[in-house]
């Protein structure tokens, strides 16, 4: 038995190790044309940006703990 022993780091619970949820986004039909007030548009954009930041960060965190568990952020999406 060696003096130094490799220890498997305990992973967080499985539900925390799930990859970020990425549901379908907004429909992109050419027929959909709407008027949206500027402030609401800005809010939608803010939420979209935060969603990406959180989801990419979570996937990176899971990949850090367990390699290749989640698709690499920025690669799978457009």
């Amino acid at each position, binding site marked *: 038995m*060696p003096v130094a022993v490799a220890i498997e780091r305990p992973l967080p619970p499985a539900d925390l190790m799930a990859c970020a949820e990425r549901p379908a986004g907004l429909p992109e039909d050419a027929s959909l044309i709407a008027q949206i007030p500027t402030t609401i548009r800005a809010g939608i954009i803010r939420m979209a940006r935060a*969603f990406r930041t959180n989801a990419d960060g979570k996937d990176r965190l899971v990949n850090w703990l367990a*390699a290749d568990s989640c698709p690499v952020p*920025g690669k799978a999406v457009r």
Partner: protein
Amino acid sequence: MIRAILSKLRGEAAFLVLLAVAGAGAWHYVLFQQVRADRDDAVHRAEIVCARSGVEWGATDTAARGVLCARHVAGLVAFRADADQQTARLFAKAMADASARTVKDNQAARLAAEAASAAAIRMETADAEAERRNRVDREWLAAVNGVAGLRPPTR
């Protein structure tokens, strides 16, 4: 006068020889005592060394004594070398793993940042257009999906 002494000694030759033999014997006896003391001391030290290594010297069988002990000590030396080697290998592997992990994460972070920045530029353009025309169209919706990193519903 010297001749007189010599002739007298010649008469006592047997005694002189006996005296010389006795002297030599005594000398050897003294030497033997020293050798035996040295030997006992050496054996005693060997017993102590063996006892510290955790195995009895085994004095009951003269031929076998020290054999178990020597084997045990050889085993200890081998263990020490093996442990050092395995420890070094474990440390090297741990360092390599950590380094590979960091490199991989840096790469992922860079890709994510590039994609996010490209999407943000597209969003800015689309939103400016929506603001100008006061109308949200397909390009704006697609840009929002891009900023969020989402695909449109497949319906």
